[in-house]
């Protein structure tokens, strides 16, 4: 027997998972400190730690295998999207058409503002379209997480959830179409240009519908034991997410639509533990750290002005669109401003769409994609704070200290 039989070899061979676990501990501690001392949402800490330790910052963490990370992000995002969908009451759109109007106006205005700015900066039409569709989306992850954490409740909160779900759908659907158009411009035959988005959108809708049906069956069978049910739901979400990527469908669309369909069909709302239990909650934290790790601010160096202007015109478009219909839709001026501001955050969905485009068109990833990435990073860090302040100003936070619970 020699030393090497029972002592570890030197230098130690450290698996990336060890760093990951350590990062989780540090990030949660930092998030807690942010909340206690600075009254900032915890997720700012999670993203911040990822950004600081990752390749974009101090570079302390090695680049982690992309496929594993991708699974974490997909699962966590799937959970948050399903959660978002199941909190949204689509019947409300029938009773108050002004909200549907506000949503459409907000998305159109954002698209138009961003598109015109990019054209003015000399970006070609197809690329400008893709960037503009991505910038429509409000981050479902940040919105759901911040609302869960703060236990906010009221008109602005309800509308924020609804409008986030809707603009996420617009963004994903139009992004697919815009990318198809880019393929068309790059010389792909018409049949594939047309069929690819059709397959993707139709297939995702079908999978979401199947999910909804199964959900109802299982729910009917299991009855009211909510803990058991949330375990099953967790499994179903994971299954649907992975199946969607295997089938090359859009996991984003599938899970969001599945949430919406189950809520719409059941008619009765159901309250589940946040993120369907602690496993889900850990995944969500990991996702925010991963977003920080993936953050890329290099676009700021070349196109600082463009990034700044993109963020500004998007903000203006969203706030003004909401304000213009606030009165008719039953909001006060203050609530209108709050809702407009709360629509600012960008994060995972935008990030995934940007990465997807970049993979299909490498030129996009190194050009306008970089500026877009910088926008996402900035709005990911500021987003949670903006949502929190907006909901506070709208008077929708609990009056007693929120840190005692959640």
């Amino acid at each position, binding site marked *: 027997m020699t030393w090497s039989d029972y002592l570890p070899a030197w230098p130690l061979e450290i698996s990336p998972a060890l760093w990951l676990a350590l990062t989780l501990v540090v990030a949660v501690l930092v998030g807690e400190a942010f909340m206690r001392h600075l009254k900032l949402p915890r997720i700012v800490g999670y993203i911040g730690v990822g950004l600081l330790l990752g390749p974009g910052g101090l570079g302390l963490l090695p680049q982690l295998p992309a496929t594993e990370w991708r699974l974490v992000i997909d699962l966590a995002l799937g959970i948050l999207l399903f959660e978002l969908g199941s909190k949204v009451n689509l019947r409300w759109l029938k*009773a108050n058409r002004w909200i549907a109007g506000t949503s459409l106006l907000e998305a159109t205005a954002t698209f138009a503002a961003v598109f015109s700015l990019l054209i003015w900066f000399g970006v070609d039409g197809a690329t400008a379209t893709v960037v503009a569709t991505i910038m429509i989306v409000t981050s479902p992850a940040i919105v759901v997480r911040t609302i869960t954490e703060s236990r906010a*409740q009221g*008109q602005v909160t309800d509308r924020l959830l609804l409008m986030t779900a809707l603009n996420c759908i617009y963004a994903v659907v139009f992004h697919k179409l815009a990318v198809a158009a880019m393929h068309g411009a790059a010389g792909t035959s018409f049949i594939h240009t047309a069929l690819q988005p059709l397959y993707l959108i139709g297939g995702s809708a079908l999978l979401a519908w199947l999910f909804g049906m199964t959900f109802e069956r299982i729910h009917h069978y299991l009855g009211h034991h909510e803990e058991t049910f949330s375990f099953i739901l967790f499994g179903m979400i994971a299954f649907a997410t992975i199946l969607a990527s295997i089938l090359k469908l859009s996991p984003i669309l599938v899970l969001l639509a599945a949430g919406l369909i189950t809520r719409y069909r059941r008619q009765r*709302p159901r309250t589940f533990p946040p993120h369907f239990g602690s496993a889900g909650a850990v995944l969500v934290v990991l996702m925010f750290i991963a977003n920080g790790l993936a953050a890329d601010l290099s676009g700021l160096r070349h196109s600082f002005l463009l990034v700044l202007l993109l963020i500004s015109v998007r903000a203006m478009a969203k706030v003004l669109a909401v304000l213009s219909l606030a009165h008719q839709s039953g909001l006060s001026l203050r609530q209108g401003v709050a809702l407009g501001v709360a629509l600012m955050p960008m994060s995972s969905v935008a990030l995934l769409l940007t990465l997807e485009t970049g993979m299909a068109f490498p030129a996009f990833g190194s050009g306008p994609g970089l500026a877009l990435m910088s926008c996402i990073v900035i709005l990911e860090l500021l987003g949670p704070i903006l949502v929190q302040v907006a909901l506070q100003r709208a008077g929708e936070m609990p*009056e007693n200290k929120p840190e005692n619970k959640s």
Partner: protein
Amino acid sequence: MSLMPFASSRPLSLGVELELQLLSCNDYNLVSSAPDVLRRIAKREHPGEIKPEMTRSMIEINTSVQQEYGGLIEELHALRDVVSEAGRFLNVAIAGGGTHPFQHWSEQKIFDAPRFHYLSELYGYLAKQFTIFGQHVHIGCPGPDEALHLMHMLSRYIPHFIALSASSPFVQGHDTGFASARLNSVFSFPLSGRAPFVLRWEDFERFFSKMTATGVVESMKDFYWDIRPKPEFGTIEVRVCDTPLTVEVAAAIACYIQAMSRYIMVEQRTPPEEDDYLVYTFNRFQACRFGLEGVFIDPRTHEQRSIREDITDMLARIVDHARELHAVEAMERVREILIAGNGTSWLRKTYAREHNLGDVMQLQAELWMGS
């Protein structure tokens, strides 16, 4: 500060106030949407009044002065429709019922008005625990002495009103076992209970000025009595009812009180006695705890029977007065409650079927909104 003079009002005219719950359509918990709902309603024409209440998750609807059941129910329907439309527009459900089954009192927010902030400071958590929902019925009286007479005579029948309207078995997520758990919250206020036994208005004024001199009260509003005179309206106000689950039941109970008042004014000339109150808290407790099954002890004969039997008996005695007041349909509805049960039994049955208080609350809101 002295009491304002007793205004004149048409005898037996009536008015109803209902405190309503505002619920989020996401989880059917209370939601602080009163400012949004009131802003929406401000643009609408409607009869009566729609007002804020102590916490932002409640609103109150008041009818104008009515003479009989027909006009009352029509106006309540109109008020209900205006409020429900505003609710649907804002994704807010509106429900009757005396308590919210699983709200947490500490999460309630005080409505932004000086009086509510004052009360909140004075009573502390009691003010937020006061997130309970009652029906108040005003009955017009020809004069102040008649008002005091009617008030003391009606006091005997307080258990009837409690048992018929009871719709608050659940509090903070649990079945309390009470038919009306709401009233337990009212009893924790220092000036709750019954009015002093005085039969002449001068004596009442003297009592009132002695109370104000002590600094304990400033106005009639500071008394949380089960029945109290309302001098500025020229009415007495019965305050023990839970908000029923439908406006129809609310109107029926109001007209039951009206018909009984006519019976007391016209037919029953025996004067009230202080000793009538010996059984008062016992009877009231029985009604809160057991509803229609509660024991009712007659203060004069000391005979014991169930509250249901006593109401049946009363319905027979006031039948002519109800006909005079065009309230026959209302009496039919009261009789239906005796057979089918009050709001509390509906709530318990629904919970036994649904196993989930959120679902119960949703069905309760659908029942009230008439959808």
